[in-house]
């Protein structure tokens, strides 16, 4: 038998209010594994070139993998994939919490959502059944209230993913949230759901997941749990300080993007660090389903203007709403994080877009006239918080900021102040001091993203081996490709990417093999990742992406870092790209060659 999978993908047509079921073929399991692999395959064949991302023709694909909901470490995650309304290309986000495994327990590996409901609805999926339910009474509600109402109406143990008002209002930097604070879907997943009049999906299931060789699988995963416990990153740093352990490390390397990437050194870093968070505000550690790492934070700001009880903030959020906006007040950041969660906003793009607006304000491209009197300067925590709410509600200047930093910067006639790649705001590492990471940004399939090849790992942390962060040699370019393929494969399992600090490709391959009963070597496992990466690239190429889009903002390619340990450096992307394309087997325009597609068995598509 093939284990690990439920074996079924649910297709939901919102226009017709009909559901159908696809069996998953063994060919797909071998070629794409699951997760991002299945999602890329479906999106490529079902969402043709030029599809309007907010039209009924776009599809929202929710997918788990063969290891989701098993004892494999950190197997609680799932992903959403779609054509992004922010970037016009492949959009994807991985979400933690408990929803993904529950979908499998309810009888499905994934869901393809198509069409548009006439009126707001939510889906109630339980043990193989699907119900379309009226959501008129919860449309407009914040995420926590939405979850509570739906649990009351369905099952107190149901897991709920939903959008907040931001997704309903088609904010292009909105996201999907489950269990109140687990977010995912950079590039406007929330808006795609909103455009379909789909407020939420509740799931509950009592089925189980059987693996092909339970005892062998158990012995392997037990060893993996031990590896994670022993590893300094997954066993100590992340459990103790959360992802925000990075704040001080990254700032000390002079690559903590500050005031919209104007410098890489933030004087207030320690005030917003993981250490400060743990010391002053942390009340509980939290974990996603079946995760021994538990990097989640539960935080309380007990009094003052920013009083809040919330999960988070994690590293990227602390940076985006903090250093990026020049804000060194951790209480204000926690409050803004909470607001993003309840309205359903994606914190990286939200913070980065506000930072762009702050730069525009300081340079005089906009004035208090456009901001309705707000002094939108770097460091103004209250202005930052006010902007979060205005973006979520599309009020005043928030209506323009809701389109993301690229559209905003173009609208004020200064496109150079938007720090994006392919329309997606860059995250919390200034690549001028980590050049491989710069190439990873430039060639990420979803645009400005750190999670398709986390080059910080070799360039700063020395995992799997230390690479000189300022060099742009062949070895480093090969590492970018290798990590992109490896991450794509891990994202098909679906396991949390943080496991990569402790586990090796052969570990993933052996978990996958013993779970499914389909033998994968480590090389075959990474080859699936390469196939997925190329298939996603084909989606981008079809939408018109070429080498000229695989570039960083001019500030990072041309303006040397002004101060700190990375002073004087730029990212010479132009020099790196031809080598990268050659290593990838792509032509000089960044298009996968026929030979490469033949080698990866992608020609028939």
């Amino acid at each position, binding site marked *: 038998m093939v284990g690990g999978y439920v074996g079924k993908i649910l297709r939901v047509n919102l226009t017709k209010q009909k559901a159908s079921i696809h069996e998953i073929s063994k060919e797909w399991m071998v070629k794409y594994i699951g997760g991002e692999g299945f999602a890329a395959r479906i999106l490529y064949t079902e969402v043709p070139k030029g599809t309007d991302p907010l039209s009924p023709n776009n599809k929202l694909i929710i997918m788990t993998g063969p290891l989701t909901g098993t004892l494999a470490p950190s197997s609680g995650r799932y992903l959403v994939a779609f054509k992004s309304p922010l970037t016009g290309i492949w959009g994807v986000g991985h979400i933690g919490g408990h929803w993904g495994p529950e979908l499998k327990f309810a009888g499905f590996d994934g869901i393809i959502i198509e069409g548009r409901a006439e009126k707001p609805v939510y889906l109630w999926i339980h043990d193989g059944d699907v119900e379309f339910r009226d959501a008129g009474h919860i449309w407009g509600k914040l995420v926590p209230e939405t979850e509570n109402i739906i649990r009351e109406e369905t099952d107190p143990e149901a897991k709920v993913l939903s959008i907040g008002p931001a997704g309903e209002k088609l904010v292009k930097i909105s996201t999907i949230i489950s269990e109140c604070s687990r977010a995912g879907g950079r590039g406007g997943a929330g808006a795609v759901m909103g455009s379909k009049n789909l407020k939420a999906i509740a799931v509950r*299931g*009592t089925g189980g997941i059987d693996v092909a060789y339970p005892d062998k699988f158990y012995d392997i995963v037990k060893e993996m749990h031990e590896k994670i416990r022993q590893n300094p990153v997954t066993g100590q740093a992340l459990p103790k300080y959360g992802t925000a352990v990075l704040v001080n490390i990254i700032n000390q390397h002079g690559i903590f993007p500050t005031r919209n990437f104007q410098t890489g050194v933030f004087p207030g870093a320690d005030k917003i660090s993981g250490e400060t968070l743990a010391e002053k505000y942390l009340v509980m550690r939290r974990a996603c389903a079946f995760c021994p790492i538990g990097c989640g934070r539960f935080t309380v700001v007990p009094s003052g203007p920013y009083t809040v009880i919330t999960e988070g903030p994690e590293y990227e959020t602390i940076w985006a709403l903090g250093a990026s906006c020049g804000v060194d007040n951790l209480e204000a950041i926690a409050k803004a994080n909470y607001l993003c969660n309840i309205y359903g906003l994606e914190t990286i793009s939200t913070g980065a877009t506000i930072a762009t607006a702050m730069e525009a304000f300081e340079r005089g491209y906009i004035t208090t006239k456009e901001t309705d009197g707000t002094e939108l300067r770097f460091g103004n925590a209250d202005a930052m918080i006010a902007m979060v709410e205005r973006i979520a509600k599309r009020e005043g200047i928030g209506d323009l900021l809701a389109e993301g930093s690229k559209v905003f910067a173009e609208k004020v006639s200064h496109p150079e102040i938007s720090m994006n790649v392919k329309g997606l705001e860059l995250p919390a590492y200034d690549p001028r001091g980590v050049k491989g990471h710069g190439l990873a940004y430039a060639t990420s399939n979803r645009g400005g993203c750190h999670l398709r090849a986390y080059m910080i790992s070799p360039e700063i942390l020395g995992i799997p081996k230390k690479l000189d962060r300022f060099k742009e040699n062949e070895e480093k370019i090969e590492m970018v490709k290798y990590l992109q393929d490896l991450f794509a494969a891990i994202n098909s399992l679906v396991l949390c990417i943080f496991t990569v600090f402790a586990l090796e490709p052969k570990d993933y391959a052996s978990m996958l093999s013993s779970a499914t009963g389909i033998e994968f070597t480590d090389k075959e496992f990474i080859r699936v990742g390469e196939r997925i990466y190329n298939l996603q690239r084909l989606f981008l190429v079809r939408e018109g992406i070429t080498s000229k889009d695989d570039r960083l903002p001019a500030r990072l390619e041309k303006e040397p870092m002004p101060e700190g340990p990375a002073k004087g450096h730029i990212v010479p992307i132009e020099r790196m790209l031809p080598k990268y394309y050659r290593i990838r087997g792509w032509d000089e325009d960044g298009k996968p060659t026929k030979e490469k597609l033949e080698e990866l068995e992608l020609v028939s598509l």
Partner: protein
Amino acid sequence: MSSRVLILDPLKCTGCRICELACSYISRKSFNPAISRIRVITWFEKGISIPIYCQQCDPAPCLEVCPTGALYRDSETGVILWNKDKCIGCKACIAICPFGAIFYDPKEKLITKCDMCNGKPLCVELCPTGALSYEEALRIIDVKRREAASKFYELITKLTIVGK
């Protein structure tokens, strides 16, 4: 009779539910929280998770209500076990358990409850934070008492130093 007990430190529970899958694996070789004998209840808005499992009560309402003697106490370990052959599926034990810790497997149509894995509970072994532990009751009380006293100790030390 062993006096070891399965004890929870709720401040250490991250809500990861690894215990649930450890339990379903050890009992049925499957990964399924619905047949697990330990279940975690979480308040997501408050970040609080509480695993619920059999407390091996003494006297135990389930033992008293069981009409056929299918539920019985192991004289050596004090753990309440269950004999499938004597069970008539009346579910009286489920109805009377004050913790909701006797579970029901709808597929197999059988009750299911914690049997302490013959003295080596796998949920404890795989719990990544030590929120669950399986120890002698007296030892646990010793630790807790010392922890409580330590708070006074710290306070008094501070006061005497300040006083001098």
